[in-house]
């Protein structure tokens, strides 16, 4: 069962309250998304560890329910 964009955003914000989350439905099918997550808590982390934080926020859904989430991360300017 795919996830709604609003659920993905809510899970990320629950774990990273300061995060700005921008989700795009890539295929219009509710299954292929891209997410841009910007958070101060990423500062100083490698790209891998920034993405790990988002994966952790999604509680094991990455690679499973969310097999088609394209992710980019960054820190605020």
């Amino acid at each position, binding site marked *: 069962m795919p996830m709604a964009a609003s659920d993905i955003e809510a899970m990320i914000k629950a774990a990273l309250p300061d995060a700005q989350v921008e989700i795009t439905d890539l295929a219009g099918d509710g299954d292929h998304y891209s997410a841009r997550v910007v958070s101060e808590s990423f500062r100083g982390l490698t790209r891998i560890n920034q993405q790990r934080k988002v*994966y952790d926020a999604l509680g094991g859904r990455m690679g*499973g329910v969310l097999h088609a989430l*394209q992710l980019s991360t960054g820190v605020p300017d």
Partner: protein
Amino acid sequence: MSDDVQARIATAVNSADVLLFMKGTPLFPQCGFSSRAIAILEHLGVEYATIDVLQDPGIRQGIKEFSDWPTIPQLYVKGEFVGGSDIMMEMYEAGELAELLEEKGVPHA
């Protein structure tokens, strides 16, 4: 997960300078992320090996535990886990993937 699978993965990541665990083959990638990862490696002009996880359910599950990373594709350079296709793309665009290859002494275009 059997130790055997973990040992096979460890051998594989140490046997090629650049190794991509992917879905499908370079000529016929079976998902968009794997396809993108191959495109990046081709642009870098680097020699690479691939393992098709769709051919082996043990590896498909085992690699996620090996790297503690839940998605495929996964790129390894000189035995070190680099990331998935999103990280590859960000690093490629920033010139960091080429830098990494240089640091590790891996020839590329």
